[in-house]
């Protein structure tokens, strides 16, 4: 009876201890778990990388291939035509630079016709105010997201419809009258190329995606090989709590989405990644990039692990009698 009571009290004290420890961890926001997702590290650049994706500064910045998968929108099932995005990051004088490159042989930068869709890329970060890792789909009520969206058509600027519909006849010249360009007249940012190729957006749930009050993200894309290379840049500190915040020596989450215009990608029809970890290192880019020695050791380690696993399985089966 006494032993039973002792066990009862011990179980109760362990239970209470676990609940109290959990409460303390939550109260102190001390998460002992460590992220094991892909890492994109932003080292300190020796020179200002600028917005040119072909700048030599990027040569030594480590690149991480971030896998993408299809996001199947409810009505526009598709996406997934871009398998990976190569992501690099640097920082220079408290400004973050992110470079993404992906394969896309078709150039889709004219969206004058309604059936045309633009190539585009977006980066998503948790908002500074987020209390937890937000839902990757436009954030959630207690954890908003900040999205940087580059579009090829916004960068190219408007193409005069007369040049698209070369056989069309018009009664009068409408080129300078915005009333005939309804989207532009209504203030649609995509129809106003002077706003630049990158929009910074904020969102907390589906249907709340909207441009941030201050548009402080710069960007530029160029054709690189058979695809695009785009550089985004912004000062560490965003204009408000709905925007992402960065600092040397810190980490945050980052997701990538790519739209392939010739595959009719638009809105929720795109190729998306999971969140990867963006680390802002307080050190310069390590030298000796691409020597392959560490890579070789990693491959050997993986092969060794496979051999150990198989060996232990065989050993265990023999010990158990092989039945």
């Amino acid at each position: 009876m006494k032993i039973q009571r002792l066990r009862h009290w011990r179980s109760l004290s362990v239970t209470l201890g676990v609940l109290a420890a959990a409460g303390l961890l939550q109260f102190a926001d001390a998460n002992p778990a460590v992220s094991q997702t892909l890492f994109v590290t932003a080292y300190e650049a020796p020179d200002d990388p600028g917005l040119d994706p072909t700048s030599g500064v990027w040569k030594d910045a480590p690149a991480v291939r971030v896998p993408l998968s299809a996001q199947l929108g409810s009505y526009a099932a598709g996406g997934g035509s871009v398998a990976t995005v190569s992501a690099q990051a640097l920082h220079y004088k408290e400004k973050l630079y992110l470079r993404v490159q992906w394969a896309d042989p078709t150039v889709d930068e004219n969206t004058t016709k309604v059936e045309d869709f633009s190539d585009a890329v977006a980066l998503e970060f948790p908002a500074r105010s987020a209390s937890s890792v937000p839902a990757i789909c436009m954030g959630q009520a207690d954890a908003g997201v900040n999205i940087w969206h580059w579009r090829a058509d916004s960068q190219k600027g408007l193409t005069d419809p007369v040049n698209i519909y070369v056989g069309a006849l018009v009664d009068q010249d409408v080129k300078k009258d915005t009333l005939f360009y309804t989207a532009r007249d209504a203030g649609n940012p995509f129809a106003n190329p002077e706003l630049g190729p990158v929009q910074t957006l904020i969102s907390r749930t589906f249907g709340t995606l909207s441009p941030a009050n201050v548009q402080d993200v710069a960007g530029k894309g160029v054709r690189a090989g058979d695809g695009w290379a785009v550089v985004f840049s912004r000062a560490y500190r965003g204009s408000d709590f709905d925007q992402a915040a960065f600092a040397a020596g810190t980490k945050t989450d980052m997701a990538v989405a790519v739209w392939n215009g010739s595959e009719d990608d638009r809105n929720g029809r795109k190729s998306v990644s999971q969140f990867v970890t963006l680390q802002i290192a307080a050190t310069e880019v390590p030298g000796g990039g691409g020597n392959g020695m560490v890579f070789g050791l990693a491959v050997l380690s993986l092969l060794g692990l496979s051999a150990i696993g198989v060996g232990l399985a065989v050993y265990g089966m023999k010990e158990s009698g092989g039945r």
Partner: protein
Amino acid sequence: MAALRRWGDPASGGYHVAPLTVALAVAAAVELLILRTFTRTAIHIPAVEVMQGPYDVLAFLGRYAYFVSVALLMLALPALGLSLFAGVRHGQRLAAIPVAVFVLVAGAAAFGLAGRLTLDLLTLFSVVTLAGLAVGRWRLAGLMPFGMLALAFLASGGYTVLQSTNRVGGADVNASWLLSVGELSGVLFALSLPLLARRNTDRVSSAAGLAAAVVAFGMLVAGGGATSRILLLWNAGLSGTLPGIVYAVAAGSLAFTFVALVRARQTVPAMAVALLVAGGLGLHNTYQTGLVVAGLAALCLADKPRPPATNPLVERPQGVVEQDETAMTLSTAPN
């Protein structure tokens, strides 16, 4: 429940492994359902003010369930390691090593004392060796599921490791084929898991499996399955590139195995399956990997499932154990 009681009994040297495993599985399941599923599907709830209060409460509870699960994991892993170390089979004692390695490296990483490459490689070591030892423990029944689980981790985790080498001067390689291997082997793991409970098939477990498959198929097909596939990616580490029916059957297989093991009174293996599901495939964070390590360690420790008693009237009295159970009792007793 006899096995559960025996494992929980300090006199048998069980280090409270069974109650801890059950509690951990329940906490992880609650966390998975509320934090990783509900709060992420709540994006479909209209952003009206009246919904904000209930949503905040649920999100708070989900985060609390997460921290409860983390606290339990920090207790369960050492307990499982100690129980394995006290095992009579060499295979069991060996299994204590990868558990200890994971606990040490995850703890060191939490304090910034272990680099990412070290953490990832040693995590893969722990998962692969435990999967190998679980094959040894479960023999032919475990060969396919645990072999596929190890392959899925090696492939998807291997991709992360190879990309991590870029940070320290490695080559920029495109090894995305590893992700396809991980996806396929992950699905095969789920599809072959019922082999663990093949002797315990009954109508209830079959019905549970069928119901889970139908629900999963409906979720994956309804509205294009956009949210379901994102949840699949976040919660299970699967990209959802295969046809929806494949994932639906996989979900049915997992549910069947879980229910069949529970009904066969194989509580710890059933909870281990739940932990593997909650942990997901591939490297996400040390919490989720810890759930997988705990699940595999419990499977290395657990007894093999037996057919259910044909006549409940002749249920064995307490204190009378079969040969295999004797081995289990001895295998978990500390020296």
